[in-house]
């Protein structure tokens, strides 16, 4: 049986959406900027771009001995396929963070009991910045607002340390817009 350590997060979507980078940023935020512990496991389908892709992240105050996430506390779904696949594994009472325009909650998928849902139009926000590729950074900003297992400051720093030099300003803005959307819409989550 999986031992309950820290906060277990699964981020899932299509390949090419920046799923793994998002997981890496969360792990980096906690382990480097908050001096805690984090693990990252990744899996992806055999398909090329557009195939399924997921990252399992554990963020914890104590050492993590088992890095696999079977029943996440937080599921970040960036595609309908990802939601369908991983929603049944979400812990009752957990959090579902999803991309509003890519994921519909009215598609017959049963949400586990007590799950709080947080939607963000991350693609639209990224398009407003004219770089769809920053969709994942918008999601990370939104995540840090509604699932405060990592502070906004640490997550933002981790973003700026993880993206290519020269793209920091726009990625920082993408993060801020995601965070502000989460903060304004959900009042910082719970």
């Amino acid at each position, binding site marked *: 049986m999986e031992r309950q350590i820290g906060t277990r997060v699964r981020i899932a979507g299509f390949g090419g959406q920046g799923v*793994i980078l998002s997981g890496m940023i969360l792990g980096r935020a906690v382990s480097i900027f908050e001096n805690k512990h984090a693990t990252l496991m990744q899996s992806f389908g055999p398909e090329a771009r557009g195939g399924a892709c997921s990252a399992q992240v554990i963020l914890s105050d104590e050492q993590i001995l088992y890095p696999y996430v079977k029943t996440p506390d937080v599921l970040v779904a960036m595609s309908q396929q990802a939601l369908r696949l991983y929603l049944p594994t979400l812990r009752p009472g957990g959090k579902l963070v999803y991309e509003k325009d890519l994921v519909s909650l009215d598609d017959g998928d049963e949400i586990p009991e007590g799950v709080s849902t947080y939607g963000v139009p991350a693609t639209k926000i990224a398009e407003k910045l004219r770089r769809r590729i920053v969709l994942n950074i918008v999601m990370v900003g939104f995540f840090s607002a509604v699932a405060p297992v990592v502070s906004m400051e640490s997550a933002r720093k981790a973003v700026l340390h993880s993206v290519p030099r*020269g793209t920091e300003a726009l990625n920082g803005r993408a993060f801020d817009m995601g965070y502000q959307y989460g903060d304004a819409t959900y009042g910082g989550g719970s």
Partner: protein
Amino acid sequence: MKLGLDQGFQGQYPDRRVLNNDTEVVIRPLTPDDEEQLLAFYRDLPPETRLRLRQDNTNRKILQRFLEEIPLGRMVTMGGFQPEGNALVGECSLRIMHHGWARHVGELKYSVHPRWSPTGLGGILIMELVEVASSQGLDKLVYQCLDDQVRLKKMLQDMGFVQEAILRDHATDLSGKKHDIYIMSNYMAELWRKMEDMIMYQEFPPLP
């Protein structure tokens, strides 16, 4: 009025932004109707800042020539205004060639009042125009800065500009002192390709 912006861009201004010091600023493109505000902005700059201006924008005729470029689509100028009183506190302009062998290149320059320079306003104005340039299909941006503009150079580097050349003793400031010019360049498409490559490499690492 034509502002050198596509319609998608025009619709998003004026835009309010929060600066590093938690004050708000209104960002919008400048038009020739902003002549008085622009003149007041340049005339209010302290002498040591004015020394480094590429041209004497406190001269109304020079400023009018600059503003005439806007409706012709050869210049896009973004201004930062104080929400109260509507005073201009910084501007950044993008010169677009449209023809000739440098038609894929845009040239940026900016001025922010020193009272506002630690607020990040300059970076915001430059970023706006980097995105305008990208939407207009420009591949490369250049910025000419003087040898002693160290903070400006660092800010440009943080935005992906790299030093491409140095022109020795190529500029004479308004006091008559000679300066080297650093040509800073930003190859925009390449920069974002790096981000895409990083994402793809992580999600689909090459097979061993």
